């Protein structure tokens, strides 16, 4: 396939077009992914997550710039939310990545979350693989701001950084259960702001508690992305973590778990689409109408449809 050859040869438009094909679930997507699959696995994948306005995009810009000083090539995937009402989106992360805007060794792709059938994470995973096969040394994935789906990133990244900012107050409670658990590195961005000491204390407590329960000591990195402060240190932490996890088998474990997880997600996604197609068929029109009108219960309708699905 011509497009794959061009992509593997380093043609950037081919990479761009390939991501579009995958994102739009065109028929040729599977062939492309199969063809590039053997070329995957060389890049370090860094996931950056955190609440909206935490400074993720600016941080990504600076992290990438720092890696560029070492001559590493960079792929960036920046995810922003899609409107559930119109399907439209404003993808604005690129706006903050101006220091990379004409560096041809940096490829930035913005993605909307689009549909709700779990597709976003599959498509992100495919975009990562395309950039990996293309030959990027480091791939940085920036998630959408806050939400439960933020933990999704750990399924795709080799190293996950959770970005916090001072002054979130009680919000820290909310994230303790969810995204704090997935952090390999904690970042305290906007570290020149009021409340940074309080936040550091809270995070240190969290880290110590985690350690006392048998977990590893999660490093905390203070950054001020707008002035580059702490960026070199952050990259060092990433490299250290990557080297460590390569050595102790954690990386291999994560990657094998990821493959299994992705398989399940793909099949679930296909199944969900089939369910929607089945529900839309004429045979079931009356049943669905009765359900919508409230004259039939959900459970018996579910049974009826599942009999068709799994027969």
């Amino acid at each position, binding site marked *: 396939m011509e497009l794959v050859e061009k992509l593997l040869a380093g043609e950037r438009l081919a990479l761009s077009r390939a991501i579009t094909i995958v994102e739009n679930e065109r028929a040729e997507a599977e062939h492309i992914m199969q063809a590039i699959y053997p070329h995957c696995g060389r890049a370090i994948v860094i996931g950056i997550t955190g609440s909206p306005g935490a400074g993720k995009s600016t941080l990504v810009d600076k992290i990438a710039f720092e890696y560029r000083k070492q001559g590493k090539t960079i792929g960036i995937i920046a995810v922003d939310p899609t409107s559930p009402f119109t399907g439209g989106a*404003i993808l604005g992360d690129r706006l903050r990545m101006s220091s990379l*805007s004409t560096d041809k060794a940096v490829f*930035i792709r913005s993605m909307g979350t689009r549909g709700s059938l779990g597709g976003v994470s599959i498509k992100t995973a495919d975009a990562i693989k395309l950039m990996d096969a293309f030959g990027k040394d480091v791939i940085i994935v920036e998630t959408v701001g806050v939400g439960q789906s933020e933990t999704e990133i750990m399924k795709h990244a080799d190293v996950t950084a959770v970005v916090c900012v001072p002054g979130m107050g009680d919000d820290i409670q909310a994230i303790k259960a969810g995204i704090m658990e997935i952090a390999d590195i904690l970042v305290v961005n906007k570290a020149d702001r009021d409340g940074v000491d309080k936040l550091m204390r809270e995070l240190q407590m969290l880290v110590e508690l985690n350690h006392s329960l048998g977990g590893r000591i999660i490093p905390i990195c203070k950054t001020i992305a707008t002035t580059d402060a702490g960026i070199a240190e952050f990259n060092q932490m990433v490299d250290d973590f990557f080297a460590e996890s390569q050595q102790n088998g954690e990386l291999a474990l994560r990657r094998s778990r990821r493959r299994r997880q992705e398989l399940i997600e793909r099949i679930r996604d296909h199944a969900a689409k089939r369910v929607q197609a089945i529900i839309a068929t004429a045979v079931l029109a009356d049943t669905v109408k009765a359900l919508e009108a409230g004259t039939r219960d959900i459970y018996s309708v579910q049974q009826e449809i599942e009999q068709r699905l799994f027969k």
Partner: protein
Amino acid sequence: MENIRVLVAKPGLDGHDRGAKIIARSFRDAGFEVIYTGLRQTPEEIVEAALQEDANVVALSLLSGAHNTLFPKIVKMLHAAGMTDVLIIGGGVIPEEDIPGLKAAGVAAIFTPGTPTAEPIAFIKEFFADK
């Protein structure tokens, strides 16, 4: 369904992006994926962004008067980068007499101040209706 991806860019030196933001928001509400690149973009930056984002549409907003230089330059560079199928439209304070020249240079449509946002939306939708 495939989403239409629109790069909204402001080439040149004017610092007024209210119009661009309004159009970006209207495009979003029309169901487009809008990649917003911000102020004071060079043609190189715009072409890079369009290429990496695989934009279907490049929507240029310009109020500085440099449209006769910058728009054709961007069109040429996009084509040179292999993006020959991208729809390029422009908006801003652009005198009527400049429009034919810009169209000849490859800008598909120009929308001047006072144009309802529905117009460029309809134009884009129509362009992609049979694609």
